[in-house]
């Protein structure tokens, strides 16, 4: 995209923000709208970021890519792949049109989160369009920088409530030289115990998924290290190495296209209708807990990721019961897809934290124009 047309697109975004600010009207910021299902019900006039797109800078030796918010994630992934690099936190797209701005605002990470870190760990800098339509730059394009408060990381997962994420600089990494996937039959308690045990040892585990009595581990790193680990899991745990297009399995975990996710609003698997019966009609809970948390006693089906720290539940349990089960072990639960969203989808904050959220919102978006109610109904 040419520079002048992107500047024009930015000017249009700015005008729309200014007009909304003037009128005190809500704006619903959207990119590809692949994550429209996420968070509380969006409100307000649509502010579409997709025209403000394009990779601004990418130098493989600097391990940094800078792109405008409307850039399709797929475009970024393709540019990186060409140079043997990637976003190691493996952000889910949840659809074809996902944009990099939406990725940062949603703050979701995929299977790679277990070993590589989360989106926020890879955000080096960001430009934000504030409520006055001004473009503010925070952070930078270098690995290390502690000048001023880290507003760019604050924007990660902010669901657009503080402003428009207009441009981001992301740290990228070389793709691992080798990967392999092994799987083994294990019951839930054994899987959780072993995942934690292995994580304390220098094993190249880059992702894990447990479902229905089978644990799959993705190993990644130097060829020699991966081979040694495959041998270790075969010898000690009778694991089988999976071959074929295993990456498609991990893509299915990331993109929520496994049958486990069927029938959910916004879920990518083809053919399934919401409310198609059985598990398909149950809402999806995202339960984030310490990896050592014991199995949660909830009704329904479970998919465990991130070495035990992320537990997806298809469950008809009362929201309160799910939240309490998560809180008891030091975690929190999000009503990720489906279910009754009217009472809010994220775990309630402590009064002290809620007060800080309110003050931050009031300081940065005094008229409350950006995605009101998306994170918490009254915020």
């Amino acid at each position, binding site marked *: 995209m040419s520079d002048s047309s992107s500047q024009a697109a930015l000017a249009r975004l700015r005008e729309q923000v200014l007009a909304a600010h003037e009128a005190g009207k809500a704006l619903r910021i959207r990119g590809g709208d692949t994550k429209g299902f996420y968070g509380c019900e969006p409100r307000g006039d649509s502010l579409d970021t997709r025209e403000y797109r394009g990779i601004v800078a990418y130098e493989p*030796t*600097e391990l940094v890519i800078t792109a405008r918010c409307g850039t399709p994630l797929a475009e970024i992934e393709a540019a990186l792949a060409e140079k*043997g690099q990637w976003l190691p936190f493996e952000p889910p797209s949840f659809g074809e049109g996902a944009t990099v701005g939406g990725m940062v605002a949603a*703050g979701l990470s995929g299977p790679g989160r277990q070993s590589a*870190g*989360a989106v*926020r*760990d890879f955000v080096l800098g960001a*430009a934000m369009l*504030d409520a006055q339509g*001004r*473009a503010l*730059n*925070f952070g*930078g*394009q*270098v*690995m*290390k*920088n*502690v*000048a*001023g*408060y*880290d*507003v760019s*990381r*604050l924007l*990660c*997962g902010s669901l657009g*409530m503080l402003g428009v994420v*207009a441009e981001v600089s992301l740290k990228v*990494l*070389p793709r691992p*030289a080798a990967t392999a996937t092994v799987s083994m039959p294990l019951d839930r308690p054994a899987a959780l115990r072993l995942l*934690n*045990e292995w994580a*304390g*040892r*220098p094993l*190249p585990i880059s992702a894990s998924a447990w479902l229905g009595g089978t644990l799959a581990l993705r190993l990644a*790193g*130097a060829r*020699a*290290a991966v081979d*040694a680990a495959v041998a270790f899991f075969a010898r000690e745990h009778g694991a089988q190495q999976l071959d074929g297009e295993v990456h498609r399995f991990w893509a299915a975990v990331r993109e929520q296209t496994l049958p486990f996710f069927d029938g959910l609003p916004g879920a990518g698997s083809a053919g399934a209708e919401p409310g198609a019966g059985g598990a398909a009609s149950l809402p999806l809970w995202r339960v*984030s807990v*310490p*990896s050592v948390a014991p199995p949660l006693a909830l009704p329904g089906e479970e998919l465990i990721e991130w070495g035990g720290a992320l537990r997806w539940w298809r469950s008809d349990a009362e929201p309160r019961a799910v939240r309490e089960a998560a809180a008891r072990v*030091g975690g929190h639960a999000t009503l990720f897809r489906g279910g009754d969203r009217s009472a809010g989808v994220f*775990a309630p904050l*402590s009064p002290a*934290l809620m007060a*800080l*959220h309110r003050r*931050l919102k*009031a*300081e*940065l978006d005094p008229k409350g124009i950006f995605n009101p109610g998306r*994170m918490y109904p009254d915020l």
Partner: protein
Amino acid sequence: MSTVYEDRFADLAAAPAPGRQQQVVERLKALLPPHALLFREEDVRPYECDALSAFRQLPMVVALPETEEQVVGILKACHELEVPIVARGAGTSLSGGSMPHAAGVVLSLAKFNRILAIDPVARTARVQPGVRNLAVSEAAAPYDLYYAPDPSSQIACSIGGNLAENSGGVHCLKYGLTVHNVLRVRGYTVDGEPVEFGSEALDSPGLDLLSLVIGSEGMLAVTMEATLKLVPKPQLARVVMASFDDVVKAGDAVAGIIAAGIIPAGLEMMDRKATVAVEEFVHAGYDLDAQAILLAESDGTPEEVAEEIVRMETVLRESGATRIQVSESEAQRLLFWSGRKNAFPAAGRVSPDYYCMDGTIPRKNIGRLLADIAAMEDKYRLRCMNVFHAGDGNMHPLILFDANDPDEWHRAELFGAEILELCVEYGGTVTGEHGVGIEKINSMCVQFSPEERAAFFAVKRAFDPPGLLNPGKGIPTLARCAEYGKMHVHAGRLAFPDLPRF
């Protein structure tokens, strides 16, 4: 003292109103035992500066609480009386971050030095803020785990200070900065209200305030407890030491290693001035003919290390290395590193004083910046050694000077400021890991626009409405930047504060 110094210092040096000290002391006496409250000049003298000893200010009062109730009491009292509070860990900040306020209280957290729990299965350490960085790794060692962020000051610096500065070290190229290795922080806001950021899970609901508080230089909240991530100790580490006859070639070799898809566990550079100074000190067998030496470490399983070392050697050779040595034993590895680790004390031996800068630039500009620094040595008539985290582009020029000569210090400051401006001009930032503190507050005017600074103040107000936590540090006011702009032209360089970066 220099004009630059006085300018940045004015707000913090304003003496308390008459009777104010007595009022505050009386209030705190009710909360603290006598030995935990210092206010006589001779008693507070040890707190007048941190490791940036060129900036000094006697505090009005120093409080050394021993219990969390006392901390809360002090915060509430200061909030009510509107007294500035400067939290202090070990005082090793190199940016004047823990330098006191003339009318304020230094809240020393040195006595909170207990490791509360090590959980080897969850791979976490729960610690108080005054715990030394290295103590965490020592406590985790029996489980073959360690805490990855390793600032060179790790023997002395505290976790509270590390969080406030988002500290890094040799290993953060591969293992990240403090922000990547902390799960949860529990502490208090300025009014003594308890808050908890993050959790022992990998994320928490709401905004990511944990990321915001880390690196906030003690200006948003006071840390009383942190849960840190521990990672498995690599089975093996080996280091390649490569000599270059030209710093630019060495800089390019750094980019070459990354381009080859290798992320070393550490990638550090020393220029000739530095190797000569440290060789005298540690006798590590450094190549004194080399214009620059690179230290590139590989860690992991023996198979991984063997593979990576070969690949790094190849790149280094192709980049024109004149000599390459690979450590053959742990003892030799530590010897190779000893010079790098002792560069600061070595600088202290070859010069009465040194001024350590901290800016970060894209790696590709390392050679250019080093050449610029060499030219500035003539311009400012001062010597400068370079030892730095090359893999991160995090430069630490050590400007050598004599503090007894005020003009030398003045020139050292201008030299440093010019380096930081070049860092911004080259696409980098004015601080990599030491923070802004009071030291770089003027350089912040170069990196951030008035609107950006206003947003920082908005964040500050949300956390600390009366502005009592470490005031005058970190974020410069509009007035200060206007003032700096004038002086700046006077100093002979054009600033580009309004260059569009968007």
